[in-house]
């Protein structure tokens, strides 16, 4: 398969995965230091192959939605790591001015229609984006990234049926990390052949080993261009393993030791690195350099987040509606009206 992937892309794939992992590790540390906003932080360590593989198969102008574990996907799509880190820290310099946090990062300029804290919540939006693309001849494909857990949410199937029925330029990308919180997929889904399930809704479906990132890239490219050509919506299930807990603090007591150790051996980064070294495209030193650069970049992102300001209270009332519409009347303003005069 790798034959069809040019060398530069293969290296880009590695760099992207290293940047994802560095981002997740650094944001995880920031969380432990109390430097992030909120009690929930979901890391995608172990899933870099799925995120990078699909993301690199997308083109500028393509759109996508992600889920609660979406940092890596957006890093791969070119997200500004400073603004990402700042958002996760709840700072005014963040992508969403501190209003969204880790689970609601978005960037319209890069086609990121938003992460979502509702499992499955972001899936139908890509059907709409696909409809816009088709109706307005935008030439773009829209990709929904979500986890295996969303494969039990009704909205997922309604969306698949609609995308297939209307032959929209849409691809559903399931990052199957084997778990939904503490529940292994076989305890959540009556069948594990997700690709087969998707075919039942008229989608062209492929299943790939996401610990072999080039497989993901190749399959995603095929489905995305197939969809772009108007030949029908696609589905890709990228199998991997969630290396650590559901959220940064979760120690996964519900998983057995042996399984975790085995799972962590299935490392998309090391697999791909070995492939590149074997192909003579990369040296150990080159790898270290790449990894060092990634970590440095993320250290700087953390510094940016830490030195950024928290949003001012007045910003709370902004962004509810378009600026042309008056902002909501605050509770204090109401009290002033009723009681007369200020406090």
């Amino acid at each position, binding site marked *: 398969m790798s034959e069809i992937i040019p060398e530069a892309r293969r290296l880009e794939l590695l760099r992207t995965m290293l940047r994802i992992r560095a981002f997740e590790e650094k944001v995880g540390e920031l969380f432990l230091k109390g430097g992030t906003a909120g009690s929930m932080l979901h890391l995608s360590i172990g899933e870099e192959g799925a995120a990078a593989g699909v993301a690199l198969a997308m083109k500028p102008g393509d759109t996508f939605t992600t889920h609660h574990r979406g940092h890596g996907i957006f890093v791969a799509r070119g997200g500004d790591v400073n603004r990402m880190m700042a958002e996760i820290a709840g700072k005014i310099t963040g992508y969403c001015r501190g209003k969204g946090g880790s689970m609601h990062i978005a960037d319209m300029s890069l086609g990121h229609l*938003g992460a979502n804290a509702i499992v499955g919540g972001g*899936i139908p939006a890509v059907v709409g984006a696909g409809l816009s693309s088709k109706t307005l001849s935008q030439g773009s494909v829209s990709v929904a990234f979500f986890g295996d857990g969303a494969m039990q949410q009704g909205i997922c199937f309604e969306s698949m049926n*609609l995308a297939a029925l209307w032959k929209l330029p849409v691809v559903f990308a399931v990052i199957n990390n084997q778990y939904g919180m503490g529940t292994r997929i076989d305890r959540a889904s009556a069948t594990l052949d997700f690709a087969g399930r998707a075919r039942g809704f008229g989608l062209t479906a492929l299943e790939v080993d996401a610990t072999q990132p080039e497989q993901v890239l190749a399959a995603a490219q095929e489905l995305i261009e197939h969809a772009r050509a108007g030949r029908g919506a696609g589905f890709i299930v990228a199998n991997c393993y969630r290396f650590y807990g559901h959220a940064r603090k979760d120690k996964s007591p519900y998983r057995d030791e042996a399984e975790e150790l085995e799972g962590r051996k299935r490392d998309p980064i090391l697999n791909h690195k070995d492939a590149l070294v074997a192909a003579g495209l990369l040296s150990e030193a080159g790898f270290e350099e790449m990894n060092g650069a990634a970590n440095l970049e993320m250290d700087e992102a953390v510094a940016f987040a830490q030195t950024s300001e928290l949003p001012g209270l007045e910003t709370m009332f902004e*962004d509810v509606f*378009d600026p042309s519409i008056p902002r909501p009347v605050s509770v204090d303003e109401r009290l002033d009206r009723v009681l007369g005069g200020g406090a």
Partner: protein
Amino acid sequence: MTSPLPTPSPVPFGQEIEFRAALREAIRQEMRANPSVVLIGEEVARYGGAYAVSKGLLEEFGEARVLDTPISEAAIVGTAVGAAMTGLKPIAELMYVDFAYLAMDQIANQAAKIRYMFGGQIGVPMVLRAPMGTGRSGGAQHSQSLEALFWHTPGLRIAIPATVTDCYFLLREAINSPDPVVFLEHKALYVSKGVLEPDAPPMGVAVTRRKGQHLTIVTYSRQLFYCLQAAEELAKEGIEAEVIDLRTLNPLDLETLAQSVRRTGRALIVTEDTLTAGVSAELSALIQEECFDYLEEPVLRLCAEDIPIPVSPPLEAGSVPSPARIAQTARRLVRRAR
């Protein structure tokens, strides 16, 4: 992309038309003016809409812009949300507002919150149209009035017209809104008729449909006509009721409301949604807050009973306000002896 436009028929201003025709006309004009406006919903295309609102639109604008969908309410709304974020201006239709419960995540957790969660990067310029209310013995799952749910959801704007003129102008404004608008159409009004006036105030402006000095009746949608009927009755007895049609809940024209009540000293709120924690509660609270020192009597609420809506015609009719009950309540309010 869009089928060639026939020579535009002029909008029938000054003529008497049906409520549903006014809605159809608004959609047609916006679809003609803007190729990014699309209509999405169950049976909106070939069938022409369960209540015939979209009859003829498929023929004029084609399948690319008038889309029949499967019975997938959550996906219908979710698709509209995504479309609205990427260049289209979708008008999504729910066959009955009762089905909003199947799409509430996409309505309340997504459409309403997207602009805010994403720090103002983007809005969701979509309209969600749905028939509401009683009158056809549709039963507990086909007759609800759920405007309070939407009003309680920050990020949503709500239009709830009573007249054909408001149907036309408010829907056109809604389609051009940069933020999601829930547009609620009383199913008992679809075939009602009225003269399409050439102009109407924008969202956020309440209209005083009848002037009066003895009490202020605050209402909207179908109940407006019941209130006006009641007011006629009352006039014969020398009671002059001022009747205010809110037209939109968000934005709400609190000023017009408050000024009237400060003048009359008496307020009666009439709605068709169930009383407890409904629209009438917020209106009562607001009036009390704004007019406390002017109130001669308690603010009253005449609304649907706190029960699921029964099918049997006498029960259904008896569960919501009627002109007679409105008049009787107004009488008691005005003549109340302390």
